[in-house]
């Protein structure tokens, strides 16, 4: 039984706006083990970013409200911590990197100074030592130490993202949260960054929560996968389980939408309709209106997560032990 770095239980996060209540995250539970890279997959509005921000209690309040749940990091429930204790956790035990490397860096500080700043915020008092460690970090992410005096505008997008990763890993956090870290980058640079992430995961034993909508990225990097839809986890398992023994109809729908798995000339099979408005979620299973396997029962109750060993799925259909998706039936 792997030691869990992070355990989220029954997380509920809503945004209370003038126009209504946005139910962004609805009863999400999952955990991340030591040295594991978990991919959190879903489309826009699924609640992935809100989940990630909750881990660091960074959900903007107002209008965001964490209504329920516990987030256990290193044995402590982060949601119960006062602000000053939280600041110690942020950056040191958990670090986060965001999507846009162009705006994530301070334009008037050198990259060496920015990495050093993070180091000094979490213990190191000596500036010289911090700068030296910053240079080490640059080497780890594949940038020559001699460039530590460069400013962000002198670097390309890919290099800036490397610096962002260096800042995040400088204090050797146990968990790194990456929210769409390669979406804004060219595909060849993306490949470099993904290799780097894998390498750092090996070297530093850092666990990772990788948020993305790109199933290719997930396949490349992740050990485990959790699929989110309308604020809930609908499927969770190892990468092999989710990709090769898919259980949830939504996940199947995502795979059917991918052009690179289809032959040219074949029509894509998109999921009809759209993700429901989080202000107006339907009563039962949120995916039921779009689901090709739905039955009337699905619209009445929200399905619980059903276990198939380490593979979990939130779908009534699996109460019947013989149910199989078309994807799996055709081999």
């Amino acid at each position, binding site marked *: 039984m792997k030691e869990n770095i992070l355990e989220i239980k029954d997380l509920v996060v809503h945004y209370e706006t003038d126009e209504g209540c946005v139910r962004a995250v609805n009863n999400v539970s999952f955990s991340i083990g030591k040295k594991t890279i978990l991919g959190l997959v879903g*489309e826009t509005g699924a609640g992935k970013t809100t989940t990630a921000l909750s881990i660091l209690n960074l959900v903007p309040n107002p209008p965001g409200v964490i209504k329920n749940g516990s987030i256990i990091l290193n044995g402590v429930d982060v949601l119960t911590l006062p602000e000053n204790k939280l600041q110690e956790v942020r950056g040191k035990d958990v670090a986060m990197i965001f999507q846009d490397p162009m705006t994530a860096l301070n334009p008037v500080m050198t990259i060496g100074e920015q990495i050093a700043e993070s180091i000094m915020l979490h213990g190191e008092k000596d500036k010289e030592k911090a700068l030296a460690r910053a240079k080490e970090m640059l080497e780890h992410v594949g940038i020559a130490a001699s460039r530590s005096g460069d400013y962000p505008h002198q670097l390309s997008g890919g290099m800036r993202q490397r610096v962002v990763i260096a800042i995040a890993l400088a204090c050797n956090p146990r968990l790194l949260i990456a929210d769409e870290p390669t979406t804004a980058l060219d595909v060849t640079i993306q490949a470099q960054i993904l290799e780097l992430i894998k390498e750092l995961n090996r070297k530093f034993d850092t666990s990772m929560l990788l948020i993305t909508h790109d199933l290719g990225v997930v396949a490349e990097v992740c050990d485990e996968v959790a699929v989110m839809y309308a604020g809930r986890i609908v499927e969770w398992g190892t990468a092999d389980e989710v990709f090769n023994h898919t259980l949830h109809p939504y996940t199947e729908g995502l*795979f059917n939408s991918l052009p690179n798995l289809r032959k040219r000339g074949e029509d894509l099979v998109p999921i009809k309709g*759209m993700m429901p408005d989080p202000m107006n979620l339907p009563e039962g299973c949120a995916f039921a209106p779009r689901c090709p396997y739905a039955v009337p029962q699905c619209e009445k109750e929200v399905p619980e997560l059903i276990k198939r060993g380490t593979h979990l799925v939130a779908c009534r259909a699996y109460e019947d032990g013989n149910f199989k998706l078309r994807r799996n039936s055709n081999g």
Partner: protein
Amino acid sequence: MDNKEKDILLEVRDLKKYFDTPKGKLHAVDGVTFTVERGKTLGIVGESGCGKSTTGRCILKLIEPTSGKIIYNGEDITNYSSRKMRKLRTEMQMIFQDPFSSLDPRQTVMQAICEPIYEHKLIRGKKEVEKRALELMETVGLAPRLINTYPHELDGGRRQRIGIARALALNPKLVICDEPVSALDVSIQAQILNLMKQLQKELGLTYVFITHDLSVVKYFSDEIAVMYLGQLVEKAPSDELFERPLHPYTQKLLSAIPLPIVGKKKPERSLIKGEITSPVNLPDECRFNKRCDFRSEVCLKGNPQLQEISPNHFVACSRVHELM
């Protein structure tokens, strides 16, 4: 190239577009040549800074080319004034990348779609025009109840459908698509791609599909042209390009695509090294040589031109014959 046998709708010859910057001349597009057959799709792929978007805009004369020729349906439109282009605009349209910024936030769906029709007086009478707009909405899958909604009230997929409806309103023959699905979620992308394919079949449209997303372009195009730093480095039919990529850059590009496959046999990934060089003041050598695994002396002696290696498969690499 046998133009008589093929029905060529668009021909671009040695297109160049340079921008003056404080640091020198920026070679955004540097000698691009290709043709597109009527009813087919040419995909132009490349990463940021390769010049593909600029090429698309030059074709439509939204940007004035520095030199070269653009020949549409046999007419040389390179030096056409905006007045002369006006008539042609009904035949050549563009679908833009960002459905969030390519629509005027102050126009309703109905107003946005009717605008081009009114402008070119294709149909007379408000009722008739609005009827046509409703037809277009139905064609692209927009519910009629959305006629008075504003772009900010709709999601990306619906906004992009408005963009498509607008482009179709003039019954164009050629549609330049600049990253039309990149800003959309995967499942919405699939819907829009299916729609675009269906429209091509029904209306006989010719597409130039500009994107950085290789998986989408393979699915969608008949022919693919790969651009790097303003030049074409390889051009081949879609399947051929993916099965037998000959230019080292194309190989790296294809290798870099993260495939959504786990466990089963996946091709080994070969990473490109370094970063893209600046497109300003380029020396006279192969532009890819600094990042190329196969660089040698000959690569520094001038910029390689496109050569036809096998039927319809063009590559711009000095060492291509050795490396094949």
